[in-house]
């Protein structure tokens, strides 16, 4: 029970905040609750298949294969694969982190995992089509062209910023 309380600490804090807000402003509370339910529906629809895919990946893809395709020495191949998987994914950004954890545990390099997260957040294909129609081809294509090298540079920067010790600690503490 105590463990459960600790696990849900943040959740309870946010619920408390929500209750206080609702007492102060009922309309605001109602509206945020309806947005929350909307996001909850989104989460419940897209998150289960993502986790099942991750479970299958974890069980079926040998470490050797992951190292070969996305590991330290995977070069351009690793960068491309990270981009493709990230861009083809569905779901909100918070779904990218559990996926990143499985990749890391299987031996993908930090650089490629950061590229994967960047692609998931920024170059998702359905999002691009949406942006294209809402903000125009010039806007969407320019952003994509700046973002692709940007994501790679940020990933390299992050990977260098983290010391070997930092990386080992992250690997040790990966949840799931």
């Amino acid at each position, binding site marked *: 029970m105590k463990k459960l309380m600790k696990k849900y600490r*943040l959740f309870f804090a946010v619920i408390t905040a929500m209750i206080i807000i609702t007492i102060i402003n009922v309309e605001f509370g109602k509206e945020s609750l309806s947005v929350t339910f909307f*996001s909850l529906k989104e989460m419940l629809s897209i998150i289960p298949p993502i986790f099942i895919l991750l*479970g299958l990946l974890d069980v079926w893809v040998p470490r050797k294969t992951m190292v070969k395709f996305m590991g330290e020495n995977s070069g351009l191949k690793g960068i491309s694969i990270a981009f493709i998987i990230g861009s083809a994914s569905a779901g909100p950004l918070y779904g990218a982190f559990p996926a990143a954890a499985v990749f890391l545990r299987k031996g993908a390099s930090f650089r490629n995992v950061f590229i994967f997260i960047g692609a998931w957040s920024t170059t998702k294909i359905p999002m691009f089509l949406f942006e294209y129609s809402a903000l125009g081809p010039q806007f969407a294509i320019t*952003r994509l062209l700046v973002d692709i090298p940007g994501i790679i540079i940020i990933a390299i920067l992050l990977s260098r910023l983290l010391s070997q010790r930092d990386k080992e600690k992250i690997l040790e503490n990966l949840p799931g």
Partner: protein
Amino acid sequence: MVFRENMSTVITYIITAVLLGISLAVNKKKTIKALKKAWKAFDNILPQFLAVIMLVGILVTALDPETISDIIGFDSGWLGTALAAIVGSVTLIPGFIAFPTAELLLQNGAGYMQIGAFVSTLMMVGVVTFPVERKFFGTKAAVSRNVIAFFFSFIVAAVIQWVVQ
């Protein structure tokens, strides 16, 4: 428009079902192990997910298109861009709300530079998703990624401004 996002969900389900079927046919024991791992990973992160979702509910309500429009204003300079970047960093809005909002802002006279900063930080920087990111990557990596992405968004904004106008 919502259709497109639903499409990718449908495709994800189809791929998952096919792979799960193949896995089950090849090795039942391994498949059960995979499902157990999936559940464990989900159960592990669920508290953070729920907290994030509620935070998003509060923030999206607080930052409706009119409020965002008021904050970003029509200062087409760097100040407006910085404000747009901050608003974009805090929020995590689904695409089908975000892009029409950005479109509305443009129609109301906001510049391309602000919209560029807003859209870029909206996607790359996640203050609300920070608890999830930190749980996986630790404080140093999570903070660094968000800070670098925040500043990178100004480059994106400047290039968009330069190209589009």
